[in-house]
């Protein structure tokens, strides 16, 4: 084999030997690609469910205030996210060294969905944008070695999807007590995200398409905030008191 690889090939057998080697390599890469695509699909599904869980718990109709519920949602979310991280851990050996870049396209979809879920949980807990380093840290083994290098592009594209979930959260929360303040916080937050991502658009493929979705989400939140502002403008009472009156009139 060694000789057939480093010299010209004089016999048919030598040619066949060489191609036999290629076949093994191509089959191996193809099998690996299939395994990674399957894992990526699993991650996508789990991440989507995690996002639903976060919404569910964060907008539950309990007596608690929004913050308490958000924290409980985040806590439950972390449990789900750890399950996903275990799948990433199991993919480590398939993505070592130059294998990561070879198969990046197969891994990206699941990874971005995971980042969307992770950043949503992070937002519920901290009301901030999760940093690149923090995301990479969730994808490291105990010794702190990354399973694979996180690309800036996957990080940004995942975050970009977060704004859509925040919009949904804001709209659901808005008619609850304290929801207006929350909506207005989220409005400011999403506005900042949009501004921060704007300058990166020409350098990150696919980001500007997602920016236009972010823009739509932002306008939906703005419209919701507007409705509330207009509605309370007719009364001269602070919004807390208005809320109480409404609550009393309904709860009967």
């Amino acid at each position, binding site marked *: 084999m060694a000789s057939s690889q480093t010299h010209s090939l004089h016999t048919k057998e030598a040619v066949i030997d060489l191609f036999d080697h290629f076949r093994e390599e191509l089959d191996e890469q193809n099998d690996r690609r299939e395994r990674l695509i399957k894992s990526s699909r699993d991650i996508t599904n789990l991440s*989507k469910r995690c996002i*639903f869980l976060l919404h569910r718990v964060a907008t539950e109709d309990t007596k608690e205030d929004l913050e308490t519920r958000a924290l409980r949602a985040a806590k439950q979310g972390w449990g789900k996210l750890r399950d996903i991280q275990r799948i990433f851990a199991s993919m480590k050996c398939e993505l070592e060294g130059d294998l990561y870049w070879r198969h990046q396209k197969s891994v990206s979809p699941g990874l971005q969905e995971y980042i969307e879920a992770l950043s949503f949980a992070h937002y519920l807990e901290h009301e901030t944008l999760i940093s690149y380093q923090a995301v990479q840290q969730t994808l490291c083994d105990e010794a702190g070695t990354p399973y694979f290098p996180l690309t800036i592009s996957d990080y940004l594209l995942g975050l970009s999807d977060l704004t859509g979930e925040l919009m*949904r959260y804001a709209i659901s929360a808005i008619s609850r007590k304290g929801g207006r303040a929350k909506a207005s916080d989220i409005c400011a937050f999403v506005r900042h995200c949009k501004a921060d991502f704007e300058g990166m658009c020409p350098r990150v493929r696919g980001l500007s398409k997602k920016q236009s979705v972010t823009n739509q989400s932002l306008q939906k939140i703005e419209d919701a905030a507007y*409705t509330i502002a207009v509605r309370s403008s007719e009364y001269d009472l602070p919004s807390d008191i208005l809320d109480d009156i409404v609550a009393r*009139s309904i709860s009967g």
Partner: protein
Amino acid sequence: MDPQDLEFINDSLDRDVELREKIKEEVGELDRKTRSMVGLLNKIHSTPQDKIPPLVDSVRPGLQDLQTTTTAIYELIPPDQFWRWKEMWSNSMRNAVFCATLMEYLTSGTLMSLASASAALGIREEWKNRFTLPAEDYLHGLITLVNELSRLAVNAVTLGNYEEPIRISKFVKDLFAGFSMLNLKNDTLRRRFDSLKYDIKKIEEVVYDVSLRKLAHPA
């Protein structure tokens, strides 16, 4: 191809085409019936509260009449092939669910369960695998119901009924809590569920207006 095989295949294809034609006809019928019920129920927006019960009663025969058509479709569908053909009537059945659950809400103020809705549309338990009401279609019907109730909340106030929005608000919030339990794919149901949040917001606004103006006097 062996001529016998060819004949076998051509026969099967012909049978499918014929079956599709027959189903299409019945679905047309189903569609006409539900459209007519939807048309009648549309009047709730301009009907004073005390005239609602007779209005609902006038629609009931239409609902019962659906059974003839659902039975006809059931009889056409081969065993286990429900999912093969259901796309053809999903839309009509969702509208039918909407009618049934709206009528139930108007009558008792409560949510009609999937089982009751199936029964109301004349679907029998023992038909399953040939004709049933899948959760997905029931859920679509419920979302249409919420769309309509948010409109009703507005129009009830215009008609001087200030209690209705509050009743609707409670009903819809419970339903929303139910929907929140689901893990949806990125499909139509998800998109419609998102839109449901806007209906709830609208209803809340009406409740807000009404309570702050002290027009409603809760018990």
